[in-house]
């Protein structure tokens, strides 16, 4: 109780410590609509990014019967030119969400492992070994992404996270095409793509450690500040 009445010079550490103004119904409704709008915008940007990566890398697999199919390379480039700058600049905001996606992907992998078929598609069986490899991949990625979410991201971090997502997009599309042709899921490209994707995140972690050792985390540098903090220039 005494702690509550003490003058606070530091940032509150938890929800229980914070003195919040009572929110009106209107402000809560506005906040809800803002969140929904942000989620929808996020879906559009993510869809454009992954769509752009997939189409650009596998132009041969694109359906040419439609206008966008015939101009797939241009569509993909436009998608990437729009989505990459947005994702790059706002990364501090969505990295935590990506970590959440990766975390739940582990749960999805475990469900697939237990059921023996792709998460929500009982007509598409998946071998236990394949499900296990995906579970390990997403578990490792979630742990590494979790290490990044609570610190300010440097340009190198951002590039490496984008490289991770780029590799993930190619991996999704590559494996998807192999599934369409009923090919064996395990192949050298599968492991190489997973390795590249997973390799990006430890490099970012190592680079951050190196920066700290060189003294960039002196008081005033705000390297320990949480993502999206006032110290964040984006």
């Amino acid at each position, binding site marked *: 109780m005494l702690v509550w009445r003490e003058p606070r010079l530091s940032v509150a550490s938890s929800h229980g410590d914070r003195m919040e103004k009572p929110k009106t119904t209107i402000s809560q409704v506005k906040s809800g609509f803002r969140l929904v709008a942000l989620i929808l915008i996020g879906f559009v940007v993510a869809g*454009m990014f992954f769509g752009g990566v997939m189409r650009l890398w596998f132009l041969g697999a694109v359906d040419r019967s439609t206008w966008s199919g015939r101009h797939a390379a241009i569509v993909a480039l436009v998608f990437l030119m729009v989505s990459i700058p947005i994702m790059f600049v706002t990364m501090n905001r969505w990295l935590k969400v990506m970590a959440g996606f990766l975390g739940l992907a582990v749960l999805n992998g475990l*469900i697939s492992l237990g059921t023996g078929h792709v998460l929500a598609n009982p007509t598409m069986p998946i071998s236990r070994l394949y499900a296990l490899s995906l*579970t390990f991949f997403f578990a490792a990625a979630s742990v590494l992404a979790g290490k990044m979410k609570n610190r300010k991201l440097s340009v190198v971090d951002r590039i490496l996270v984008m490289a991770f997502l780029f590799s993930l997009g190619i991996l999704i599309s590559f494996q998807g095409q192999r599934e369409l042709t009923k090919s064996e899921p395990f192949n050298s490209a599968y492991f190489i793509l997973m390795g590249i994707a997973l390799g990006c995140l430890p490099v970012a972690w190592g680079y951050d450690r190196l920066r700290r050792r060189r003294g960039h985390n002196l008081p005033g540098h705000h390297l320990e500040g949480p993502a999206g903090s006032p110290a964040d220039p984006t």
Partner: protein
Amino acid sequence: MNHWYRNCGNSSGFTLGIRAPGQTFNQCLVQNAKNHSAGGIADLTGLTSVVGAPDLGTSTVGQVFAGNTFTGAYAGLAGSFEDIATTAGTSTPDLLNAAIGSTTTFGRRTSNIMALNLAGKGGLPQALSSSSGGLKSLLGTASKALNLGLDASLKAAIDAGLAGAEVIGCLVPR
């Protein structure tokens, strides 16, 4: 490819139902589960499905990455109660954790209206006492373990919303 949006209506008029004639509720849920996922929505909103297959909503890696955990679990385990308990278990510690330390009085020193304490004596009554620090710590650890130590609440909320939409859609026949 996602063609579910084309099947949202029939020739006789508009309907929100997605359950085909003669299809059971469970069959409808399983059939449409892949469309009601974050990956499926990203395909739709990002127009990735327009230019060709495969995409996030249908490929194996895409489904594991951005699939709907709730409907996926239901599809996998035919909606048994054990499965529902497993999924709900990951969010319960977070909810309890948030309840600890929430103020429940009314006065100048409080924010929520739950009880009168105009004198302001005795501090802030709380939903669960602050002295239960051990419990809070334990719940925090459990929450971290069950949520894999990450902030997955937004993805879980999206999944839950889409699962709810799918359930409503499957309750209404086309």
